[in-house]
């Protein structure tokens, strides 16, 4: 199987790297943001980096315009990656970087797996709510979130 892993950088990427053992024996590639971070990606042979326009210095300055522009760039890039790599399944730990590819993948009849962040105990993330309708497997890491997502499953968590 060819598996596309897609996640934002920082915590989302840290969570994804705790799960890569699940994909051993399959061909994988990762899509994440082009940002400075400390995680080692040595175990993943193919990594695609998408530019990130959203300023990171403070959440107060999250600009909706930049977010929209970033989503368009992400969608175009991810469509290209989908057509080039032809994965069978998309696996994501969030966040907004995964939204375009999950919908594109659903349109192209691929399977979509979403794992909500371990940091979300009672309140789901925005990307989880948006991706939920197209997820074939939707996992939450705390049972308290099961009542927010009827088709979700709880099957453990990264720690």
């Amino acid at each position, binding site marked *: 199987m060819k598996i596309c892993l897609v996640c934002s950088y*920082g915590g989302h990427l*840290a969570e994804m790297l*705790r*799960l890569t053992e*699940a994909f051993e024996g399959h061909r994988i590639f990762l899509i994440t943001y082009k940002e400075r971070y400390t*995680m080692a990606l040595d175990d993943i042979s193919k990594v695609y980096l998408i530019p990130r326009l959203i300023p*990171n210095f403070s959440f107060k300055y999250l600009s909706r315009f930049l977010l929209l522009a970033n989503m368009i760039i992400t969608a175009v890039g991810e469509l290209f990656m989908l057509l080039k790599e032809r994965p069978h399944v998309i696996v994501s730990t969030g966040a907004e970087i995964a939204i375009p590819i999950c919908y594109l993948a659903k349109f192209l009849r691929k399977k979509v797996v979403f*794992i909500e962040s371990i*940091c979300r105990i009672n309140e789901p993330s925005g990307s989880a709510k948006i991706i939920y309708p197209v997820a074939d497997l939707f996992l939450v890491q705390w049972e308290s979130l099961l009542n927010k997502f009827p088709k979700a499953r709880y099957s453990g968590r990264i*720690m």
Partner: protein
Amino acid sequence: MIFVTIGTGAFPRLITKMDEIAGKTNENVVMQIGCTKYIPQNAEYFEFLNFEDMVDFIRKSRVVVCHDGAGSIMTVLQLGKPVIAVPRLKRYGELFYENSGEFIKELIDQGLTIKAIYDIGDIEAALRNTDSTACYLDTENQKKLVSALKEYINQLQKQKVGSYQGASK
């Protein structure tokens, strides 16, 4: 040595407090400050570190102070060091969603050896009273999740093979 890491964002409330503490203590303080604009005056600092250097600093530290980030906490506990976690809070503009440190509370309820700081003034006392004897990371929960994903992927593979065989008949 006290090592401070705040991940990829900005956390001026914690960095300024740790800089103040670094100015009072004889103990060496090293900080990874991410996108924080405040520049420490009393401690060695880096904006970002590669993974090997991060692990090296954690190994050499007596205690690690970090934000409530899963990645940082996992790395520190795996290396068997005491961790003091400071949740980022919406009321200080540190997050765009409501958070009162539930994540850290849940981890502690699950038995993880983390010291949580909700009032930044409590850090100094916490730094004095660290205990490294019980710092480790259980992998039971992680194995369950990995197993669930593996099973799903294997199921998909069987369906794929099944459909090829069906098509070729």
